[in-house]
């Protein structure tokens, strides 16, 4: 019988080959044996983490990262209701694309989080700072994930932070996207609480910013 590490390798390889059928077969075999969500999460998040690290090293593509996340999200969506397992008791998280309309990065992060069992509210694309503030307060969001593609949109995070301050609303902002990868200190200069270089970095940042509240 295969050990967990071998299974992780097989699942990761199936994801990297965008082989939905093989990935589903490995996943379903494993979930039939496992009665708890934690090992399932380890399989999914473990594989996606490794894929994220490989993207950082330049050995896998953004397309593979995205497709892997989508496949895992589909599998988790199918598994959770059947297994009667609830999503995590996590901080209230939302994600939004500030000004821009290219949503791939946002979708990757959303898929990763949902694949790990988190509830994530998707506020949408092409949003102004005003609209994001409004939605955040209305939904009592605790951690706000902001994705951008263009540099000028990344600079708008400063305006977003200023509007939250004026409203007296405290929210942790995690930013991600190409401008923050190309300019490493940018997240801090625009007033975010953290910057995520890769999609899977978001797990560590949630742990750090969410005071570990229900996040493992």
């Amino acid at each position, binding site marked *: 019988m295969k050990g967990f590490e071998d299974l992780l390798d097989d699942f990761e390889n199936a994801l990297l080959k965008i082989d939905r059928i093989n990935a589903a077969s490995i996943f379903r075999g494993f979930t039939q044996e496992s009665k708890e969500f934690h090992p399932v999460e380890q399989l999914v998040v473990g594989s996606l983490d490794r894929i994220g690290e490989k993207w950082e090293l*330049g050995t896998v*593509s*953004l397309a593979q990262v*995205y*497709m892997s996340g989508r496949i895992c999200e589909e599998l988790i969506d199918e598994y959770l209701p059947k297994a009667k397992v609830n999503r995590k008791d996590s901080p209230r998280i939302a994600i939004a694309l500030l000004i821009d309309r290219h949503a*791939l990065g946002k979708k990757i992060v959303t898929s990763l989080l949902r694949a790990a069992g988190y509830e994530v509210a998707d506020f949408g694309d092409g949003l102004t700072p005003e609209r994001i503030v409004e939605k955040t307060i209305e939904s009592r969001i605790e951690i706000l994930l902001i994705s951008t593609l263009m540099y*000028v949109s990344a600079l708008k995070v400063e305006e977003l932070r200023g509007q939250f301050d004026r409203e007296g609303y405290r929210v942790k902002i995690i930013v991600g996207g190409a401008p923050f990868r190309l*300019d490493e200190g*940018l997240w801090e200069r625009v007033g975010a609480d953290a910057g995520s270089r890769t999609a899977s970095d978001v797990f560590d940042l949630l742990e750090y910013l969410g005071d570990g509240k229900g996040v493992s």
Partner: protein
Amino acid sequence: MSRQPMTSMERVMTAITHKEPDRVPLFLLLSLYGAKELGMTVEEYFNKAENVVAAQRAMREKFQNDCYYTFFYASIETEAFGSESFFVENGPPNAGVPILDTIEDVFHLEPPEISESPGLKRVLRATEMLKERVGNEVPIIGVAMSPFSLPVMQIGFEKYLEMIYFRKEAFDRLMKVNEAFCVAWANAQLAAGATAICYFDPLASPTVIEKEVYMRTGNVVAKRTIAKIRGATATHLASGLTLPVVHEIAQTGTAVLGFGSADDPVALKKEAEGRVCLIGNLNGLEMVHWTREQARQTVKTVIEQCGKGGGFILSDGHGEVPWQVSEETLLAVSEAVRLYGTYPLK
């Protein structure tokens, strides 16, 4: 004994043929920066070819640039297909809602006529006006999005990836439409006076699409398309990793290859030598915060790494200098090229 300085055209052509010109050519790829030069909004600036011509000429004079760059903004091409662009302050316009709602819509898509697109006509007019004024002294660089990368704006990244991986017939159909458009658009710019076409292909980078998939998709498309473009091309991956695909891109028939700050310049130079001229790789976002000394040091380093033997043009690594970069930094880059880039290199 001092040599007679070359014209920008001579300098660039010498570098492209892998020989040493009088100095390393400088391509500051200034597009929307022209609006800042003329004190206009980006939307107002790109609304008239005359604005672009005036700014290009003023900026070349100011920064001693070795090219004119007639790139307006990427979504001007999807405007020709019927979509909108959204203008923002101090940055490039964003492409609006994709024109293709579903993958099935691809089968009803036809290439638009260049002559029916007001935006593309403005680019052609700017190219003609620059050509009338400069003749053959300064290269005029036009831009065409690659048929393989344009779909990100036409249908959105997610649906396009579904097509690449699972819907071959839809992918092939879209490439057929886009190849016809790209060839017509590139050749129209060459006919208007462009010296060469920058073939923007960010999806060719293994940062975005894995090499094995690129080789059976975008690389095949590039070979077919570039063969039909009646002039020189420079392929640019807009900051994505270039090193793993340098040979394969050189085989598409392109003469120049853009690279960004994530690549290893020394390894890239070794692989590109004699095959393809390199253009890069200043980090446009870091340039926003550079001191004069950082500009000098960065230019010096990359020239040391890539300049020997020609085959190198200094530029930013993305294909557009951000609005937020100061004139002082651009002047420092320009001075540093003359200081450290004069051949023979020290």
